[in-house]
């Protein structure tokens, strides 16, 4: 008999910040005043904001209590498909917060920041080797920012070639960010459907690819967890019409050491360092979204670029075809340090094993849960598998109910209702850092929930009951927005 993880325990209530405190308290050691007070021009000054005054103890208890209302990877398994909630190694935090980096100003003369520049140059080389592409920018602040960089590169490339193009092909399995990023560059998304096997067929691409289409955005492995096996043929079709191939590398964690993006015909790829390379998600950011390109697109990468000249590293602006800058400074350096540390810790063999075990875990779950939950594409999956609520609908139980009930069992729910091509999708990505024991408890919990759906569906409708809050009224929140106190 499995002992399930979910239980209840004492958590404490905590009001909003401004509902506590007393005027005149301060949680900050004000620096000694060693210069005289001056008067700023009265016409320009004001009272300052209406902030609560709190002691250090008030502040510490406040946030510690809030923290206990969160689930996290360090708490338990977080099988959130497409999000890659793997363990975030603690040594990487030590490296990223090293005072030499944390205390460094971004506009230092290059002689005074050789350490960071060397690290950036080295990380670019590592990411190029891992992806099989030729040149890398580390500047984008997140995956979607990397997508924007990629679309800007498409745009600049076609303009340089003398013909701006107006359309881009985006499969129906794509993340919403793909069409949103493309539309920032004025591209109209041409959606194409995946075939009955859950992947793109070359014919579907050939039917829409023309000389007004700038290229295609493909996620590979795709959001169904399937490898786009026709990618090379698709790339050939797109290239023959003068287009470019963008690969959303959100799922690179499935193919480390196995696939070669250059061989597939990919021209531009973004990586999510917070997925594949284990930098923490931070409750929704910051991430980092480096972009890797094939040699012919290197001139379009954002500036400045790290160069090694006369035995020292420097930041160079000397790239006249560059798309320009995406952030004020050079990228999310703290996350670059974490990802660099991760790669150096694992090395080639263990990075390959990361993908092998990520796929093994997903394949194991797929095999053990199929039959219990409907599996719309019963094919060998990569790092994630997508079920649906089809078998539970007879009991008037939905994907949302299953997800909420899983919380009571002590797991974060999978990604739900995505990808859109699977109605009621339940998208499970275990990642490689979950052990067989943990996954077995997860599988037993999912099976127990399926049994409850049949025998006592009301338990699912009422779930969750073991969290800080019961289900929240999202409709009311949107209808009458209360966005501040």
């Amino acid at each position: 008999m499995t002992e399930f993880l979910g239980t209840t325990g004492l958590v404490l209530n905590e009001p909003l910040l401004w509902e506590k405190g007393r005027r005149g308290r301060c949680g900050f050691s004000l620096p000694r005043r060693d210069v005289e007070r001056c008067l700023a021009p009265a016409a320009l000054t004001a009272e300052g904001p209406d902030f609560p005054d709190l002691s250090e103890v008030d502040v510490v208890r406040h946030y510690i209590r809030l923290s206990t209302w969160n689930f996290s990877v360090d708490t338990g398994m977080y099988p959130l498909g497409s999000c890659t909630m793997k363990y975030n190694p603690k040594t990487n935090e030590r490296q990223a917060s090293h005072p030499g980096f944390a205390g460094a100003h971004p506009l230092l003369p290059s002689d005074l920041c050789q350490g960071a520049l060397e690290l950036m140059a080295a990380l670019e080389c590592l990411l190029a080797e891992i992806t099989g592409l030729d040149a890398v920018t580390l500047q984008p602040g997140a995956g979607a920012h990397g997508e924007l960089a990629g679309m800007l590169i498409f745009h600049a490339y076609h303009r340089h070639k003398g013909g701006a193009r107006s359309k881009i092909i985006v499969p129906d399995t794509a993340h919403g960010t793909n069409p949103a990023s493309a539309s920032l560059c004025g591209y109209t998304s041409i959606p194409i459907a995946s075939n009955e096997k859950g992947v793109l067929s070359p014919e579907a691409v050939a039917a829409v690819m023309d000389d007004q289409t700038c290229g295609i955005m493909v996620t590979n492995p795709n959001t169904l967890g399937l490898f786009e096996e026709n990618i090379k043929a698709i790339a050939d079709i797109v290239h023959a019409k003068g287009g470019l191939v963008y690969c959303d590398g959100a799922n690179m964690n499935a193919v480390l050491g196995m696939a070669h993006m250059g061989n597939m015909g990919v021209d531009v790829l973004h990586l999510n360092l917070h997925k594949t390379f284990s930098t923490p998600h931070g409750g929704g950011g910051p991430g980092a979204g480096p972009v890797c390109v094939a040699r012919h697109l290197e001139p379009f990468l954002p500036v400045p670029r790290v160069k090694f000249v006369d035995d020292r590293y420097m930041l160079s602006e000397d790239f006249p075809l560059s798309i320009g800058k995406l952030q004020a400074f050079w990228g999310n350096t703290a996350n670059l340090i974490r990802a660099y540390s991760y790669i150096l810790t694992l090395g080639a063999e263990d990075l390959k094993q990361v993908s092998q075990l990520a796929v093994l875990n997903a394949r194991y779950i797929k095999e053990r849960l199929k039959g219990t939950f409907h599996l719309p594409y019963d094919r060998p999956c990569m790092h994630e598998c997508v079920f649906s609520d089809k078998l539970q609908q007879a009991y008037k139980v939905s994907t949302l109910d299953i997800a909420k009930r899983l919380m009571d069992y002590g797991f974060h729910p999978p990604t739900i209702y995505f990808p859109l091509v699977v109605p009621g999708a339940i998208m499970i990505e275990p990642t490689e850092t979950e052990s067989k024991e943990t996954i077995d408890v997860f599988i037993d919990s999912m099976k127990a929930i399926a049994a409850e759906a049949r025998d006592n569906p009301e338990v699912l409708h009422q779930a969750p009951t073991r969290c800080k809050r019961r289900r929240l009224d999202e409709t009311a929140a949107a209808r009458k927005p209360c966005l501040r106190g």
Partner: protein
Amino acid sequence: MRYLPHTPEDIAEMLKAAGAESLDGLFAGIPPECRRSAPMVLPNPLTEWELNAHIDRLAGRMAATPDYKVFVGAGSYEHFIPASVGFLTSRSEFVTSYTPYQPEMSQGTLQAIFEYQTLAARLLGMEVANASMYDGASALAEALLMAARITRRSKVAVSQAIHPLYRRVVDTYLKPTGIEVREMPFGSSGTTDPAAIEDPDQLAAVAVQSPNFFGCVEEVASFADRVHAAGALCVAAFSEPLAFGLFRNPGIQGADIACGEGQSLGIPRSFGGPGLGMFAAKMQYVRNMPGRLVGETRDKEDRRGFVLTLSTREQHIRREKATSNICTNNSLCALTAAVYMASLGGTGLRELAQLNFDKAEYLKGKLRAAGISLPFSAATFNEFVAAFPDGFDATYRRLIAKKIVAGLPLGAFYPGLKNHYLLCVTETMSKDDLDTLAREVTS
């Protein structure tokens, strides 16, 4: 490998259940032409202890404070960060959680971000602030795109006293959209003249930064008055929000959108990132805002709780019609800023802002007394421009050897400002540090 828990026995059992022969066999679906022809060539793996030594070596080649005295701000500021801030924001429950799409088990992050939105809105004097964006520069670009959506106009005017690197990011974002960017010059006071706005009735927005890149306080209100009469929006940018503890905030002056960098609110400089893109607007424009928003609601038992809301603006619902492609907030940085603002409180923030102002005024006085020209006459916050005599670059290099970085040379950003340096003084510099700098730059 300590992050990978599988034993050979686990692997064998799981392969059997999965119906695969070997780990490599799991990848049979990848066609040969898509595979690597050779294994990855990466450095040999490091132990934790070897990695520490390696990173120590790299970090040792950085001119970090407090070893160096770095009198450079320009969008990245050194401020004291209480130990409690780093301690609280290192909590695993904040660091290793995802975007709070499942609100019942994410109330910690959601309440913290609702509080951040509130503190940010109060600091900026705006009606609504979002859950944050990448950085100040990209927030400004998004603000101008938002103004173009609202007004359906396709020209914007941007002050040349806005951070030059922010303006370059604006150019990158706006170039493919066809939105024309006009620049407004700054005058001898170091500020932008509202009379320099041409054809405001054709503009989607006018953007000014205050304090601006030179540290000078702009009169945002006069821009707001002038552009509102012409149906355009006033975008108030900033890179040093601590200034609003002393100077009038964007909202009080009528800004429609306030956006900028929040790094100075307790976030380490980290060689430029991650930072905190702060973004706030008038409530009437909320459905046109980019970025995540947390809102208050009730649960099934009628208890107060928080959720992500108004997501029909966002890419995961709206796809190509979204207000932005952004699907992140720099959540942990927003949390850090909130903890920092809560630690300071209203009283502490006012005092700290005053101290920053006073220290910069002290150094200005010292430099003036030493005969250094401070060319701009406008009031400044914690940074200002000094014009040094020809040949100062040799002094600048000599000071670096003494571990002093005497400001940011402006010639590379503004060819007309050769020999001009942007100097920044925060609470971290003691009177002795300021006396030393004033002495060294004139000797």
